[in-house]
């Protein structure tokens, strides 16, 4: 009975987390697209570009920026839509959306991102972060498409989770930059942390969420063992033992 309740709660939590993730990412993607409209004003340069000037290959860099922004604005919402159960139930639609997103990512997002990363502010460490994220997307996309063609759906889902996870870095990274700015952290340090932490955390989360992942299997076994060995009653007793002495100090 307790196990059933626990499983039901887990399922419910997963549904809510999924909805929250999708809602957050859709809002973030729309916000980024709206902010990026300025990149298509050919008469003036936006602050993000100005702070990089002068660039070695300015025309190529600006063209790459525009391609990257456009490719992301198309492919990210398509990837998010493909993650929903409603689209996954409609196999033909899922396939069409996936193909469009895959082509845009492979021929637009990744090459333009690689060009942009070479002149990333923050130096080689930040460039490496962008290239690492792009490599995960390329590798996962290749394996995801191959798995789909072989009808290996679990492997396909695992690979595509990695693709979406790395694409979500665009949103989570910007959110962190805003947070760090509010906290008064130096923008250069903030920029570096706000790139690497989401890249690594997204890769880890995507792996933990994949049922076929070895990492997830070992984590599940560990959590189950802890849960079995520590009953909820024992946990309450322990928490009370920790909390009780605190008010006593005030007497």
């Amino acid at each position, binding site marked *: 009975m307790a196990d059933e309740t626990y499983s039901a709660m887990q399922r419910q939590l997963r549904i809510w987390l999924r909805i929250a993730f999708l809602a957050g990412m859709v809002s*973030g993607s729309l*916000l*980024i697209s709206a*902010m990026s409209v300025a990149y298509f004003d050919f008469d*003036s*340069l*936006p*602050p*993000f*570009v*100005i*702070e990089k*000037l*002068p660039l070695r290959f300015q025309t190529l860099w600006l063209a790459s920026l525009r391609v990257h922004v456009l490719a992301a604005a198309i492919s990210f919402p398509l990837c998010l839509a493909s993650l929903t159960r409603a689209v996954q139930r409609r196999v033909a639609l899922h396939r069409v959306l996936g193909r469009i997103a895959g082509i845009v990512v492979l021929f637009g997002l990744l090459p333009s991102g690689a060009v942009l990363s070479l002149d990333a*502010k923050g130096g080689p460490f930040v460039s490496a972060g962008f290239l690492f994220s792009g490599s995960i997307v390329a590798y996962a996309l290749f394996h995801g498409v191959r798995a789909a063609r072989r009808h290996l759906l679990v492997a396909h889902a695992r690979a595509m989770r990695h693709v979406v996870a790395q694409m979500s870095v665009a949103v989570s*990274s*910007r*959110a962190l*930059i*805003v947070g760090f*700015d*509010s*906290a*008064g*952290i*130096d*923008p250069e340090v903030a*920029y570096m942390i706000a790139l690497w932490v989401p890249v690594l955390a997204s890769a880890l989360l995507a792996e933990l969420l994949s049922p076929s992942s070895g990492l997830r299997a070992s984590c599940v076994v560990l959590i189950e063992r802890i849960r079995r060995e520590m009953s909820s009653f024992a946990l309450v007793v322990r928490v009370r033992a920790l909390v009780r002495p605190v008010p006593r100090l005030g007497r």
Partner: protein
Amino acid sequence: MFVLSFVPSLASADDPDSVAWAEQRVQKEIVRPLAEQVSKRFSRARPAPRERRVRITDPTPSHDAKGRDFVPFAVDVRFGGAEWKRDDVVGCVYRASGAVFIRREGAYYPASLLLGKGVAAVSGVCEPSPPARS
């Protein structure tokens, strides 16, 4: 544009308060326009600093190769923390014309570069000429 930037302004080289004048030029050409720009919050662009201050790094005017007087300056910025980040922008102000140039990657550009204008590097400005040999 480069030629126009050297058209003499009202301030003369003999202005007793040339440091304050140079500061005002930098305030007008760089600090105020940048402060008026709307900062985009959800972007990878560097967040707008909370404060900017102008420093005239050497109040004694230098002369470039063409004998024109200029005063070097720096703009420091402060973000959320208490510390000022020095030399966020460095450049010079020409005393006769009031033209302001900034340094980027070893070259000097008109200050309008910071406002998104596509301008080319200008050679020979803000570089003191070597002292004449006797």
